[in-house]
């Protein structure tokens, strides 16, 4: 009997405190988002791989170790992120890559780059240099409308041109994708609390059965 009374009194008095803690959590969530997850994001432009690493919460992962592996598991190269959490490298071959970020103290994450993210020639020839000198000429030809019908580009060159301009246009979008932080949503938080309260109910039920049974 006494125990029951204590329970009730305790609940009455502690609810404000606990609700206060929760409310504090909710208030801080939108501003601070969250901490303690490290993410790496990589995208390919031509044959160069750009990576950006940061902790969730927006803080960049400075001077963190990066290791690049191929799909066979061989380490191709390693390096360190700079002051902006960036690391840029050119893989020896355009192939599927696994980029592992080790930000110290148990923080680790990885990002996979698929082979087809590398532009044309990725599968055929790893050296795209013949395309480069042709670029200004074709651009000029395109900009002067009068000559348009005369322009006939070799298929490979046209494709390379498209790839390059797409890379240029998409770079900011890809960059933005990397900076968008999808932290836990409110439904995740409420769902988690709901789970815990559900478990409390289950435990209390089992205990009460044991008591009466």
């Amino acid at each position, binding site marked *: 009997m006494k125990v029951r009374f204590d329970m009730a009194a305790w609940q009455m008095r502690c609810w404000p405190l606990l609700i206060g803690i929760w409310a504090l959590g909710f208030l801080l969530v939108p501003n601070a988002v969250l901490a303690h997850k490290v993410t790496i994001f990589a995208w390919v432009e031509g044959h160069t791989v750009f990576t950006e690493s940061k*902790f969730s919460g927006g803080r960049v992962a400075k001077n963190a170790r990066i290791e690049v592996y191929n799909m066979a598991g061989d380490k191709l190269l390693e390096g360190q992120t700079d002051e902006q959490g960036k690391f840029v490298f050119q893989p020896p071959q355009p192939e599927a890559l696994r980029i592992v970020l080790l930000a110290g103290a148990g923080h680790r994450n990885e990002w996979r780059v698929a082979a087809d993210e590398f532009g044309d020639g990725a599968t055929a020839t790893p050296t795209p240099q013949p395309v480069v000198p042709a670029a200004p000429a074709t651009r000029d030809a395109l900009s002067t409308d009068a000559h348009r019908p005369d322009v006939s580009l070799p298929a490979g060159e046209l494709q390379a041109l498209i790839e390059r301009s797409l890379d240029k246009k998409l770079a900011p979008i890809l960059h933005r994708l990397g900076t968008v932080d999808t932290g836990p949503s409110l439904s995740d938080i409420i769902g988690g609390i709901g789970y815990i309260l559900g478990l409390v109910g289950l435990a209390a039920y089992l205990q009460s059965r044991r008591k009466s049974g």
Partner: protein
Amino acid sequence: MHISEGVLSGPVLLTGGALAAAGTAVGLKKLDYDRIARAGLLSAAFFVASLIHVPIGPSSVHLILSGIVGLMLGWGAFPAIVVALLLQGILFQFGGLTTLGVNTMIMAAPAVICFYLFGRLVHGRRAVALPAAFACGFVSILLGAVVAGAALMFTEENFLEVTLLIVTAHIPVMVIEGMITVFCVAFFRRVQPDLLPGARTADRATLQERKET
């Protein structure tokens, strides 16, 4: 303080898992009827606290609340923290499923140790109780950093270096957790001293023992 998936070696993960399972078993055994609701509420508070980002210091850290959880639950901290960590892993991608055991040891073991170190002191004179409460919050994080360093020393070369890194990163959190614990203890001393470990709970335990014999 959550260690990510894929950082630790198999034996470390297994050891952590086994110890955490044992701790959880003890905790569940000690979790009697009137402590279930308390454990659930503290588990929920722990779950949400990880979203409160502390933007001070060199790295990315968040509140943990292991001190107050240990103080209020004793061994019950194990089941409360394991549930919260599991949900954080699933919903927030903090830590991971394979590292659940190790992460439980990082946060629940210090909670139980702090319960034994400071549990009795918080019932004493105010001049003793409040510093003890601060130390409880502070030391729980400090010990957590030491356990994390011990887990990481098998993969990251140097125990002292890693531990120092984690400790320095968590100094602001230690101070804040100390203050939160002081606030909670002061609050409970005023409204419901029964909830704190110490005098009256001990009386109740001895009464029960006498009843049983």
